[in-house]
């Protein structure tokens, strides 16, 4: 999509096509000859994995829509019919439901890889922001999709999430009524959620195209976080990375298949196999695992509006990250102090996820009562999530801005090829070191 094209049409048809719609040229330049840093590790394979998962979700979703009925009286039954009567319906639905989880596993690894190797820094800010937009669209799509089976968790999850907007002053109530199309979550809500759930994946596909375009302007970042200096630093995308990505996709599909075939409901919630009942809320209402860290942040704040704002702020802060991180060094391989804070950040995210699955007032260490602090015992999940949430925000708005100015990074290699060529392992045994310096 950028740079000099090396495509040469070989057949008459290719020449004819190239004069009219140079789509083969574009495919050749982006997926075959695209110069890619030669040192990308397996953390870089998750982009390809995500692209494949998007295709899996769209294909299985289109099939499910052929059998699903978006009506409060039939939705639950139609999903059960897919599971029991539609030929291979169980397979397609389990692929779709677990595919969503796989999609989020891959996207979280992809995001953490970006954070570690500083891929969001100049000149890749737009690439990063487009990624944040994709992540937001993914969360919206996943939430809308979880509503469709119309089980207890579907229903009451929708009630809670749509009521989040009710926390906004003045316009809050009008917005929730508008979202519901009534005075409660009901048939109009289910209908529109189905329509939007079908729409959003195609919007994601559109933003993915922009994301790849924005990637191919500056090219890939790499584990060293330094710019490509010469042709020596790169290899063509095909066959080097088509094969590497392909291998990673195959491994990832083994994980995916192990969920689909051996434990298809482990990531779901049993309450969603109970038909929706607006008059009874399940005793313990939790979102899907991939939303748990944000759910923990929401519950960590005792004020309704404050909790909602902080939860959205947790995602909003990602958008401005390229301007918060003041370090000129991209890769944390050369930022030992930042690496430590990053590891704590990953831990804080995992702790938030763990807290989101627990009841707020339950003790973290069972059977121990410490002392009451403000509104809850210090030994409670609500306080643990407050500490982790505080670190989450501090990492972005305090640690990264200050650390970039105060830390001393390690020396960065001159080029991608330099550390490889000067590494002792590349010198054959028995060869003389630095022969040019010998007499």
């Amino acid at each position, binding site marked *: 999509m950028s740079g000099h094209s090396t495509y040469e049409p070989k057949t008459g048809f290719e020449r004819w096509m190239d004069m009219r719609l140079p789509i083969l040229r574009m495919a050749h330049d982006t997926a075959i000859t695209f110069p890619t840093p030669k040192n990308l590790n397996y953390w870089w394979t998750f982009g390809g994995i995500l692209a494949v998962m998007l295709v899996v979700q769209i294909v299985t979703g289109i099939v499910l829509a052929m059998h699903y009925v978006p009506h409060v009286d039939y939705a639950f039954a139609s999903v059960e019919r897919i599971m029991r009567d539609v030929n291979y319906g169980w397979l397609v639905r389990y692929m779709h439901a677990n595919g969503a989880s796989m999609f989020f596993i891959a996207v979280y690894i992809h995001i953490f890889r970006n954070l570690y190797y500083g891929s969001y820094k100049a000149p890749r800010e737009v690439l990063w922001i487009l990624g944040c937009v994709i992540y937001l669209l993914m969360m919206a799509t996943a939430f809308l999709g979880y509503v469709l089976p119309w089980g207890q968790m579907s229903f009451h999850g929708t*009630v809670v999430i749509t*009521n989040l907007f009710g926390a906004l002053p003045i316009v809050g109530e009008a917005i929730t*009524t508008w979202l519901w199309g*009534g*005075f409660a979550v009901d048939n109009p809500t289910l209908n529109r959620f189905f329509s939007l759930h079908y729409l959003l994946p195609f919007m994601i596909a559109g933003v993915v195209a922009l994301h790849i375009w924005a990637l191919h302007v500056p090219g890939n970042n790499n584990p060293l976080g330094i710019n490509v200096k010469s042709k020596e630093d790169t290899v063509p995308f095909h066959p080097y990375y088509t094969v590497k990505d392909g291998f990673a996709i195959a491994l990832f599909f083994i994980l995916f298949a192990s969920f689909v075939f051996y434990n298809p409901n482990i990531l779901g919630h049993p309450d969603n196999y109970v038909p929706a009942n607006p*008059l009874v809320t399940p005793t313990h209402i939790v979102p899907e695992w991939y939303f748990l860290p944000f759910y923990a942040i929401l519950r960590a704040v005792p004020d309704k509006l404050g909790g909602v704002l902080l939860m959205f702020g947790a995602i909003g802060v990602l958008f401005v990250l390229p301007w918060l991180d003041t370090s000129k060094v991209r890769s944390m391989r050369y930022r030992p102090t930042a690496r430590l804070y990053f590891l704590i950040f990953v831990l804080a995210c995992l702790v938030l996820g763990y807290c989101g699955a627990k009841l707020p007032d339950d003790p973290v260490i069972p059977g121990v009562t410490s002392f009451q602090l403000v509104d809850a015992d210090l030994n409670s999940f609500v306080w643990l999530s407050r500490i982790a949430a505080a670190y989450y925000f501090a990492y972005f708005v305090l640690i990264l801005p200050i650390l970039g100015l105060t830390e001393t990074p390690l020396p960065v290699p001159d080029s991608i090829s330099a550390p490889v060529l000067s590494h002792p392992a590349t010198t054959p045994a028995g060869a003389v070191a630095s022969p040019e310096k010998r007499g």
Partner: protein
Amino acid sequence: MADTVVTDTHASGDDPNRRDFIHIAAGAAAAGAVVGLAWPFIDQMNPAGDTLALASVEFDLTKVAAGQQVVVKWRGKPLFVRNRTPAEIAQAIKDDNASLRDPQRDEERHKPGKPEWLVLIGTCTHLGCVPTFGGGDYGGWFCPCHGSHYDTSGRIRKGPAPRNLEVPDWDFVSDTKVKIG
């Protein structure tokens, strides 16, 4: 440079010509059409006529024994009809002067002379879950989702909910029958 004078007829504002008029008129018409069409496409998501026309419900109070609650569905939402015991009423009145987040006296929340009957919209004012009857620290309701405690008058006492359980429009049709909505 004085041999030719070129006048840009589009740049000066003092002599609008026919082309300027067409530009402005076309631009304004297009912008007006977009804005005018945007509203129908937004408003179609608001409650439809049949949803708004949902009838009010009548309810027979003899179904509720003292100390019990019956949940009725109204406008897609649960409605609590609670027959309070004298002890619960006394507790609610006693707490009129306690520190309340959304201060309201118990007598403002029931019909005059009928303190035993409490009719409330059964959705937590936090995020809309259905609170469970008789739970929590204050004997009223407890919301399982995020831990809001309501007293026997349906007032918020503890937890994240900002307001008391809402009292809908309702009235006695006869001594044993009420109409809600």
